[in-house]
């Protein structure tokens, strides 16, 4: 009740200022008149009566002011009037306002953008219902060691789903490639194969159509449903709403597009945004053997996500699930008993795995904001001096110092608000630019939302305090007396502070540029390192689909292509491979290698060695050296003795101190196929641009036929120019073969190095931004000091100093600051080198070349920033300068 009254008074005071004021005025007037009447009645003369009444009242305006102070909306009124005053002040100094707003907008904007990125990558929960209760599950060994295959088997999933009381829902998914035919075109897509309850449990509502019904077996004549992701729908169908309900052919099966996912849902994996979602029944309808595969107890390829019941902790869930898991795996003969389910909240997992990189990037942009603040502090200090007279005047006529500080902070707040708006627009622009800079497959959902806006407000307010408090406190020290003695010692203290700030700015940008330089050197080192193949080679990479071919037909196609394609114009050599290095298909394919007498620690099973199947000509086509022995050739076919080429690392670790050529091993455990080592290939990088040497082997494609195959064509021409002729050649060899995608080795390597490149781009642009801000800062300080010493310069010129003397003395002043900053920055970079070390490759954190280059760039830019005011100083006309005083 009383709150309601207060609220009403507050609003009344706020919005009907006029009537409230008039009311007060009338009340006091009538009070005065009643006092006069009283006095008249007690026998005073009219003049006396009025005078006495006025004395008694004690000043109409003061009383009014006292009443106003008591009012609830009072503080707001003064804030509004302060803001109005601030706006007037800012409008009066357009130069100052523009520079300050731009500087702050850049500094704040880059932070908002980085926060938005950090939020999308590591901080924000998944875009699903009750995201805080979503858990991830993976398997470890019972000992706690990491298991090679952390996924789950179908029986485990089923047991969890029916037996768990700690979870309100659990979903299984796996990612696979799907060939989608729509009209004439065939495309290879990334599909998420999901349990039908997937969207139900995650609480996702479709943008169009419907999602899956959590019904295990659909009616036999019902269409097989699939769902498109929003991005894929936009990219491939231009957001055509007609597609819902249409039939498409996926992996030879007619499926119905039943719905489109919402824009916000980009999958549950940061780095993968599946194009299409296929429920398991649809997937099994595409290929019935998949059901046998997936439902076996020893196939553990499902990734599980669960939703905790409210109030249940991940640990409780883990205890329960582990008990269920043990029960089910003990019953099934083929299941692996050495597995222990591990449960973690999705959000914790995400923050732990990506948190440090994100934190580092936020620190870097935080430094840029500090630079921007330093610039604005310098501007404010310069202006505070210009305004000392005004402030002293206001103090003299009785403004309280606290009121003045509030006024100055309000001014800063207004500045930050304007800058905040520009910053938000700037960040918005960056965020919308981002998706075009990265492969569409990425699941990051960059957006500006309420969280970003809140962050923007917080950073802007923080900026007000960082940048505003020092000048405001400085102005509080203004003494009325000192201002009378203008040009005494006033500028010295703030002058020193300004110099310190500029030095810090230069130092920070030096650190950022060194970080950028080191990352660029890393990228160069990664690119120029020996990856175990010739990454500079001009090569066309073709993926294709051969559904419809029998195994024999397919082998015949491979042989014919190897025979006929080299004759095509421009083609140098041709080869097939199961995968090429850094290929998107993970590279986890392995064979169990068992060597008699070699203690593998895996018992009869053998050791896992990653491999790829290759055709004759592979090594020469991709440029991998055969160190010893021979490569795989055309005589290694189905009927000949099985052979293998291993890499140097395998040779060292499997046959230490022996000659591996001619040695035999078995593939698939102790009773597996006997294989002879015929050659040793140089070590290479197989999965990541930066990785440690690992054992690897190459098997003849004819002896290890596998489904996926990549065609490599090396050429002297532009690889893209061959696409047309290769496509028609392949078709003429085998009409069942359809080209899915073509790329060049160069493009392939660009994608492989994507993470390194984006880091370089980010850090470099932030570093350059810092450099620009530092240059502006230095320019501001030097210009200001030149304008302050116009008098001195005039005197020196009148005494016969040459313009070049003036020029050099001003530049020297700036150069001293810049040099100090650069030296401090370089020292700091050396001190912090361990932070960078983990992100570098092929370059030391204290790389002399980078340091020298950064110092050179920084000094050149900063000297240029000093040159302009220095040159202006030489134009000082001594007569004008001296008269100016």
């Amino acid at each position, binding site marked *: *009740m*009383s709150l309601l*009254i*207060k609220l009403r*008074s*507050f609003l009344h*005071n706020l919005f009907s200022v006029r009537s409230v004021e008039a*009311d*007060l005025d*009338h*009340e*006091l007037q*009538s*009070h005065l*008149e*009643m*006092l006069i*009447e*009283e006095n008249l009645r007690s026998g005073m003369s009219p003049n006396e009566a009025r005078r006495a009444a006025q004395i*008694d*009242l*004690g000043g109409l305006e*003061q*009383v009014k002011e*006292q*009443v106003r*102070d*008591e*009012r*609830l909306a009072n503080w707001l009124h003064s804030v509004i009037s302060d803001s109005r005053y601030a706006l007037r002040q800012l409008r009066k100094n357009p130069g100052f306002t523009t520079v300050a707003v731009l500087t702050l907008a850049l500094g704040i904007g880059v932070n908002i953008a980085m926060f938005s990125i950090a939020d999308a990558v590591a901080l924000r929960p998944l875009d699903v219902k009750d995201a805080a209760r979503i858990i991830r599950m993976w398997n470890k060994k019972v000992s706690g060691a990491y298991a090679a295959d952390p996924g789950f088997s179908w029986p485990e999933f089923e047991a969890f789903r029916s037996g768990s009381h700690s979870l309100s829902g659990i979903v299984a998914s796996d990612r696979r490639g799907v060939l989608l035919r729509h009209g004439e075109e065939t495309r290879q897509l990334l599909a998420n194969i999901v349990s039908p309850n997937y969207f139900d449990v995650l609480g996702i509502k479709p943008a169009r159509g419907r999602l899956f019904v959590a019904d295990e077996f659909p009616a036999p004549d019902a269409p097989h449903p699939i769902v498109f992701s929003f991005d894929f729908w936009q990219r491939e169908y231009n957001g055509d709403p007609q597609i819902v309900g249409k039939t498409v052919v996926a992996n030879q099966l007619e499926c119905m597009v039943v719905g489109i996912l919402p824009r916000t849902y980009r999958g549950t994996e940061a780095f993968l945004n599946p194009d299409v979602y296929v429920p398991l029944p649809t997937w099994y309808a595409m290929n019935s053997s998949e059901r046998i595969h997936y439902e076996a107890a020893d196939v553990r390829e499902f990734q599980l996500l669960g939703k905790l019941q409210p109030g249940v902790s991940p640990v409780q869930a883990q205890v329960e699930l582990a008990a269920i898991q043990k029960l089910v795996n003990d019953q099934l003969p083929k299941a692996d008993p050495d597995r222990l389910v591990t449960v973690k909240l999705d959000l914790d997992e995400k923050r732990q795995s990506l948190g440090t990189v994100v934190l580092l990037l936020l620190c870097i942009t935080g430094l840029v904001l500090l630079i921007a603040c330093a610039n604005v502090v310098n501007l404010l200090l310069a202006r505070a001096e210009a305004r000392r007279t005004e402030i002293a005047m206001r103090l003299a006529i009785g403004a309280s110092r606290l009121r003045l500080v509030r006024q100055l902070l309000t001014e800063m707040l207004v500045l930050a608000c304007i800058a905040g708006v520009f910053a938000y627009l700037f960040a918005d622009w960056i965020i919308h630019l981002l998706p075009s800079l990265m492969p569409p497959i990425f699941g990051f959902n960059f957006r500006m939302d309420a969280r970003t806006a809140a962050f923007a407000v917080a950073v802007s307010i923080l900026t007000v305090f960082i940048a505003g408090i020092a000048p405001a406190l400085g102005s509080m020290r203004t003494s009325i007396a000192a201002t009378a003695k203008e040009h005494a010692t006033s500028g010295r203290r703030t002058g020193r502070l300004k110099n310190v700030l500029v030095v810090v700015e230069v130092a920070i940008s030096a650190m950022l540029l060194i970080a950028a330089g080191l990352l660029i050197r890393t990228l160069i080192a990664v690119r120029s390192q020996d990856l175990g193949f010739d990454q500079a080679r001009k090569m066309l990479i073709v993926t294709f689909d051969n559904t419809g071919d029998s195994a024999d037909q397919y082998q015949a196609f491979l042989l014919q292509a190897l025979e006929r394609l080299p004759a095509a114009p421009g083609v140098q050599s041709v080869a097939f491979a199961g995968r090429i290095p850094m290929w998107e298909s993970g590279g986890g394919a392995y064979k169990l290698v068992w060597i008699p007498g070699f203690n593998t620690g895996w018992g009869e099973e053998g050791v896992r060695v990653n491999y790829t199947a290759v055709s004759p000509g592979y090594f020469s086509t991709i440029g991998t050296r055969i160190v010893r022995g021979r490569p795989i050739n055309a005589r290694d076919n189905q009927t000949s003795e099985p052979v293998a080429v291993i890499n140097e690392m395998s040779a060292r670790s499997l046959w230490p101190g022996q000659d591996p050529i001619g040695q035999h091993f078995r593939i698939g455990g102790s009773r597996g196929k006997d294989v002879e080592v015929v050659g040793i290939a140089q070590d290479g990088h197989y999965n990541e641009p930066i990785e440690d040497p690992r054992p690897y082997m190459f098997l003849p494609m004819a002896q290890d036929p596998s489904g996926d195959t990549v065609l490599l064509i090396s050429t002297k021409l532009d690889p893209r120019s061959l696409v047309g002729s290769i496509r028609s050649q392949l078709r003429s060899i085998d009409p069942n073969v359809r080209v899915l995608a073509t790329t060049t080795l160069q493009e392939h390597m660009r994608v492989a190095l994507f993470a390194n490149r984006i880091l370089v781009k980010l850090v470099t642009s932030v570093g350059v931004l810092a450099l620009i801000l530092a240059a502006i800062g230095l320019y501001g300080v030097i210009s200001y000091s030149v304008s302050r010493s116009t008098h001195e310069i005039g005197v020196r010129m009148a005494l016969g100093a040459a313009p070049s003397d003036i020029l050099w003395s001003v530049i020297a002043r700036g150069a001293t600051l810049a040099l100090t900053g650069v030296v401090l920055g370089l020292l700091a970079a050396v001190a912090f080198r361990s932070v960078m070390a983990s992100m570098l490759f092929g370059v030391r954190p204290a790389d002399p070349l980078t340091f020298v280059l950064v110092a050179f760039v920084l000094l050149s830019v900063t000297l240029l920033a000093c040159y302009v005011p220095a040159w202006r100083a030489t134009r000082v006309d001594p007569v004008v300068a001296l008269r100016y005083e």
Partner: protein
Amino acid sequence: MPHEPTTLLQGTLDLLILKSLLAGEMHGLGVSRRIEQITSGTFAVKPGSLFPALHRMEEQGWISSFWGDSENNRRAKFYRLTKPGRKQLELETKRWGRISWAIAQALQAS
């Protein structure tokens, strides 16, 4: 007439205003004169303290105001006690009783 420092009056003034309005609705000058009367001239409330207090108490909802005619047929702003105001008066009276008793005790102790 001794002028009491406002700091001491801070809590007391509200109490005195509420108490004087208990007698019926009155305008600012009336309140001021009534306080003088009931405190036997110990407190003379200056407009600089009176009006801010009246406005504050109105915002609190303890008193309400309306424009009416004074005893000399002059337009004046009148104040009257509200229900929450009466409750507040009771509360303040009790509180003041406790305080004055405690102060008296303290002063009697040697």
